Every structure is written in structure tokens, then in C-alpha cells.
């Protein structure tokens, strides 16, 4: 009988470490990072400022090198093309002011040289998916902050990447809009079936969104914990009052030395 192939996750990080060398002493940006991400997961990286969560995201995006450890993305089941399979969402929507919403969404498609007509069609569908039907021809300044961020999520999806990297995408929004965007993100994630790595410093946000939470601490910057969130999907706001939800958030608070 043939041996079953050993399980291969979509992303595997092993002992990743990154040091910044500017003038003066070395600065440890991130260390001891070891976790797996299965295809289709939504992993939340949570931690305080300076814990290296953005650095880690940039390593995953191939924008930063790392000193030690191993970063492997892609598996036999889910092959990965580093120039085509990454979508990025930042804290600021960073839409180009001089482009209409739909043309903003199309930016990655233009850079990759994807067929224009099909991409435009897809951009329309994605704008509908993120709840911006009818805003295609508006300029960014005509949209609220939350709507701009929706457009930037559509932009991250336009080239159908396998991995979406989000760096505190709702950090600049007001609390209510943020709650709403959390639910929206979960819906978009379910419908688009993407793997998402989501950076946040919001502990409840991390537990609410994540299938898995990776906790990073600062000073020294290292990974402190990595655990699955066993709450059913689709998630609803009243889960935040569940005892188990409280246990998860307390676990993170404790790791971050806040209890």
C-alpha cells in the first residue's frame, strides 16, 4: 500500500527571524515565528506596536528578506506564484485619487497585464461582492472611509490571488464601521474562499475573525502563541458574549501581559 503523502500546509513558517540593521545597534524585528496556515484559513496576527506583525506580513509578501528560518508558501494542492498570488490591503485605502473606483480596482490587473475586458467584468462583480454596486464610476473622494476600504479589498481580489495580506485594514475606521466591516470581511472571505492573513492590534477583532490566532509580543519581538479558534462559522456578533470567546480573548490578554 502506498504511503499517504505527509500533510503539506499552504503556508509554513519555521523559526523565522528578522533583524533590522540601520545605523547603531541591531533591532530585532521578529523572531521564533513558527506556524502553519491551511488553504482557506483566516489567520489573525495580533500583538502590540513593534511586535513585528507588519514585518512578518512583508516577509510573506516577498518584500522583506529574513535572516533565519524558513518561509514556504504553496503546496502540491495549492501551488503559489509569488508575483500573481498576493493581494494586499493596508490600513489606509490608498486609492489613487485620479482614478475612478473601478479603475482603482483594476490597478493590479493592469500591472500584471491581464486581459482588460474580462478584468473589467470581474471588477464589477467584485465591487458588487464588497457592497459597492453603483459606485464604480465615482471618485475616491466621493466615498466614505469604510467604502474606500471596501474598494481596496476589491482591488486586492481583482487578480484572483490565493493569499490576501491585510495590515490593520480597519484600524483607521470608527468603532461601529469597524464592527460592520468585520462581518463584511467574513462574508467576503466565505464567498471568495481565499486564504487571509490579517494583522491587527485588536484582540477581540483577532478572535472574532480568525480561524487561528497567532500572538506576537514586543520587546523582545517574538511569537508567543498560536492556537485555533473553535467557534462556528458563520460568526455572529453575539458570539462575542460566549464564554469561550471570553476565554480566547483572556488568553491573548494574558500573553500580552495585560492581566
Amino acid at each position, binding site marked *: 500500500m502506498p504511503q499517504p503523502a505527509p500533510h503539506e500546509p499552504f503556508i509554513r513558517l519555521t523559526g523565522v527571524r528578522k533583524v533590522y540593521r540601520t545605523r547603531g545597534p541591531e533591532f530585532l524585528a521578529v523572531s521564533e515565528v513558527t506556524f502553519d496556515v491551511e488553504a482557506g484559513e483566516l489567520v489573525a496576527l495580533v500583538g502590540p506596536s513593534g511586535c513585528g506583525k507588519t514585518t512578518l506580513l*512583508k516577509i510573506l*509578501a*516577498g*518584500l522583506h528578506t529574513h535572516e533565519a528560518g524558513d518561509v514556504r508558501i504553496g503546496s502540491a494542492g495549492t501551488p503559489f506564484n*509569488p*508575483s*500573481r498570488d*498576493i493581494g*494586499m490591503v*493596508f490600513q*489606509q485605502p*490608498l486609492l*489613487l*485619487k*485620479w482614478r475612478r473606483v473601478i479603475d482603482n480596482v483594476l*490597478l*493590479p490587473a*493592469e*500591472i*500584471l497585464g491581464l486581459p482588460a475586458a474580462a478584468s473589467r467584468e470581474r471588477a464589477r462583480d467584485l465591487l458588487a461582492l464588497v457592497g459597492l454596486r453603483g459606485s464604480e464610476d465615482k*471618485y*475616491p*473622494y466621493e466615498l466614505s472611509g469604510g467604502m474606500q476600504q471596501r474598494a481596496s479589498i476589491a482591488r486586492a481580489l481583482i*487578480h484572483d490571488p490565493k493569499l490576501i495580506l491585510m*495590515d490593520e485594514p480597519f484600524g483607521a475606521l470608527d468603532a461601529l464601521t469597524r464592527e460592520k466591516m468585520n462581518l463584511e470581511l467574513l462574508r467576503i472571505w466565505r464567498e471568495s474562499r481565499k486564504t487571509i492573513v490579517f494583522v491587527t492590534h485588536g484582540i477581540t477583532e483577532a478572535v472574532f475573525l480568525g480561524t487561528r490566532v497567532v500572538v506576537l509580543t514586543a520587546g523582545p519581538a517574538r511569537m508567543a502563541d498560536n492556537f485555533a479558534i473553535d467557534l462556528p462559522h458563520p460568526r455572529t456578533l453575539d458570539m462575542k458574549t460566549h464564554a469561550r470567546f471570553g476565554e480566547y480573548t483572556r488568553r491573548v490578554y494574558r500573553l500580552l501581559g495585560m492581566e
Partner: protein
Amino acid sequence: MSGQIEAVHRYGLAVLSHLLLIAAWHFFVVFGHVPAFVMPSPYATVHALLVPNYRWLDNIAVTGTEIFGGYVAAVVVGVGLALLFSWFRRFEMVAMPLLVSLNMIPKVALGPLIIVWFSYGIGPNVLIAFAICFFPIVLTTARGLREVEPDLLDLVRSLKGSRWQIFIKIQLPGALPYIFSGMKVAAILAVAGAVVGEFLGSDRGLGYLMLQVQVTLDTAAMFMAVILITGIGMVMYGLVLGLERLLVVRDARIQ
């Protein structure tokens, strides 16, 4: 609809304030018994246009050519140089501090030198206009090309986008509002440059005419010349503003 009414209202008030100034000028001269060689009335000022010796149209054409020529040259060279700066960082590091120092020279003070080097006439005056409006254009354009969101660069780099793509899709359109802000400042400076050039040494143009009529104390003609010079500046500024409206999305414009 109400926006249109509001706009008409606003323009109406603007026209009114100009008319009020002319009326105040008129009454001041008439009832104040101000001698004509000190301040001519608005009517006398317009009347100066009828003196054929003053060759108004020729002089407008000369001054207009100097302003426009110097200005266009400054835009082309200024934007071009700023582009070179953004492509060749080392070049910028060498040339930019020098430009900042040269910018400190009161360009008007170069006038006598330019006349020594190039004699007088339209050419040297174009050069003075160029010198005076070149700096704001190169400085604002260089700044605009530098102001790119680092995260946006990361986004393009994560897609392995080329430098050319970054330039043509993000950097250049992002710098356009800055270019226009420099062009607006420069439009006003170009007028001053050309007129100063004519004051210093010239045999044609509205500035030259002003010096001529100063001798004969024809103040009305001097007033008219100033008004025409201002008019040329306004037309230039208006053209730049119109072009900006055409090319730059409202939200991105720099006031």
C-alpha cells in the same frame, strides 16, 4: 440647479467688486480734482489706447511673447529636470542643493548681466522670465514625484511591477497636482520677469513703453500698460487653471 444659481451669484459679486473699484477710482479723480499726470480717470486711461504712436498691439505681442516663451521653456525644462532627478537619485543629490542655493539669487538682479551677455531684445527678456519661473516649477515637480505612499510601492512591488509602471501609473499622475501648483506660481512670476527685462534694456514691449511715456508724463498710458500687463498675466493664469481642471481630479488639486 441651486449650485448653478450659487455660482452665478458668486461671479456676480466678483464682477461687482471690480466695477466698484473702477467707480471709486473715477469719483476719486473727478471729485478730488486730482491732476491727470498724478492719476488719470478710467476714461482717460482707456482713451490712451487711441494714441497710434504707442503701437499697443505690437507691444502687447512683444511682451506676451516674452512671458509665454519664458514660461513654456521653464515648464518644459523644469519638469524635465525634475523627472531626471526622480530617475537618477545621485544626480538629484548633486544638483538639488545647488538649485536651492541658486534659487536664493534674486533673479531680477541677473538682468543687467543677461543684457551684458545677450544684448537686449526679446531673447534676453525671455531668458529673464525663464530664470524667474523655472525654480518653483522644478522644486514643486521634484517634490510631487517624491511624494509616493510607501505602501502603494509595496503593493506594486508585490505584483513584481516595473519601475516604469510605478512611474507612469502612480508617480507621474500623483505629481501632476504639484506640477500645476508650481505652474500657477510661475505664471505670475513670468510676467514680472518679462517686464523687469523690458525696464532694464529693451526697445519694444509694454515695459519699454512705460519708460517712454514716463518721460512725457503720460500717466494714462502708464496705467493702461499696467492694466494690459496684468491682463496678459490673468490670461496665462486662466489657461493654466483651465488645463488643471481638465487634467486633475478636484480632490487632488493643491490650492
